[in-house]
């Protein structure tokens, strides 16, 4: 008895009662969709999708970065211990002879000779004052029975290593619908709104009881086909853009409860491609290219959400 009265007094005195009614209200809001306000707001909310293709190759280095990495590499080579070839090649073996023949070797030290670049200091066949340059004996696949005799076959271990180009065919023809373009940059999917002739990130209206991230993924498959593998970054929208009745982007101050809003969900494409189901124009563009394609107020509102690279 006494405990209950104390607790009632506490509730009254400390405004806990107020809090309780607040919680009740919010619960009602959470679980009831029948109220007019919620229904109307769902119609004005769109789930936008920022679908990006993350870089396939590392970013292009600046001249300064290249020079610095080269300097560090040279320093490291200069300070490296001598390569213990006596450990890797058995004494008197054919491999040892081939290895030794391929090495250029240091300038030997003799008495009574003037060396303009300083007196050689040689240990283990290495000039200690300089970096050690090791030449790996390369043989053609024909001569070497170990690595197979067929030069054409791709499986042969002796085949030379050829690096793929960072510059692709899609780069040559500047094919903006291709995902194989600008491999060192993040590409974003934008579509052309057919009736208005403007470029936008795809945005979709919500169905009954549908969270934003589900709506975005569902909408993408409706307009771009199901053969597309994506990974949604988060359920939480990354940003919001508000529009007035005529579709112009407006600021937070000018917006009212009745203005249209797009909440952006971020997602990455992993496999597959975007195939427009109704012939819609689309493009995969970098951040800079978006600047020239999208109208300025819209670009300014979404640009902070994009990656720097």
């Amino acid at each position: 008895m006494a405990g209950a009265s104390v607790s009632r007094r506490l509730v009254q005195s400390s405004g806990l009662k107020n809090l309780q009614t607040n919680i009740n209200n919010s619960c009602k809001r959470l679980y009831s969709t029948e109220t007019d306000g919620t229904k109307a707001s769902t119609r004005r909310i769109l789930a936008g999708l920022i679908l990006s293709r993350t870089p396939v190759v590392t970013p292009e280095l600046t001249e300064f970065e290249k020079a610095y990495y080269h300097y560090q590499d040279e320093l490291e080579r200069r300070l490296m211990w001598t390569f213990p070839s006596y450990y890797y090649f058995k004494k008197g073996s054919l491999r040892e002879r081939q290895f030794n023949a391929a090495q250029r070797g240091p300038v030997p030290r003799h008495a009574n000779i003037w060396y303009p670049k300083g007196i050689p200091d040689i240990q283990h066949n290495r000039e200690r004052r300089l970096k050690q340059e090791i030449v790996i004996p390369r043989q053609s696949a024909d001569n070497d029975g170990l690595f197979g005799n067929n030069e054409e076959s791709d499986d042969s271990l002796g085949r030379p290593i050829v690096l793929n180009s960072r510059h692709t065919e899609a780069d040559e023809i500047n094919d903006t619908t291709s995902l194989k373009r600008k491999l060192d940059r993040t590409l974003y999917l934008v579509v052309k709104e057919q009736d208005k002739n403007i470029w936008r990130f795809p945005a979709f209206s919500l169905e009954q009881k549908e969270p934003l991230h589900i709506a975005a993924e569902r909408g993408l498959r409706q307009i771009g086909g199901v053969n597309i593998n994506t990974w949604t970054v988060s359920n939480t929208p990354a940003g919001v853009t508000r529009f007035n009745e005529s579709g112009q982007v407006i600021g937070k101050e000018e917006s009212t409860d009745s203005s249209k809003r797009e909440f952006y969900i971020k997602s990455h494409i992993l496999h597959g491609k975007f195939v427009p189901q109704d012939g819609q124009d689309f493009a995969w563009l970098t951040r800079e290219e978006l600047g020239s394609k999208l109208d300025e107020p819209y670009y300014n509102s979404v640009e902070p959400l994009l990656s720097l690279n």
Partner: protein
Amino acid sequence: MFRIQSSLRAMGPTLLGSARPSVVGCNNANVKATANLVLSRGKRTKARALAPGAQRIINMLSVFSAHKKQPRRIKLAMEDLIRHNVVQKAWSIFMRDKKLIRTERLKSQYKKIEEAAEELKSLNGYLHFEATKRELGKRFSPEMRIPTETPPNEIWHEDWKVTDIYAKKR
């Protein structure tokens, strides 16, 4: 290497081969043996100091040892030292600026997320609840690829088809 060799010798005769120097000094006891020595072409006259197994161990140990393998210390002239310090300082400034831009970007993006969440809360409680729900056990997709210096042979898997497993998940 000499030090290792001598310590191995101290360990006892097990590691050292049974071979002994064939001619030892001029002791009286050995005079008879010297007289019987037959020299033949191609025969190894110098006895091996170590058994092959022990020699292999020494080779392996010497790979890890700095003995005789260290290069000379770099002696920089004053000008070179200044040049080196300038390069390092320039690099640290470059990296600091890069990091600063990145941090600023992340901060502003976090503000955008907060702003969007607040706005969603005022508009629709259900959507806000779903959007801010904690995603327990969320991991990066194993199909994501880390950028490499050159592209793979198949740059993009365009012919990917949605399988039943994926269809069920969605």
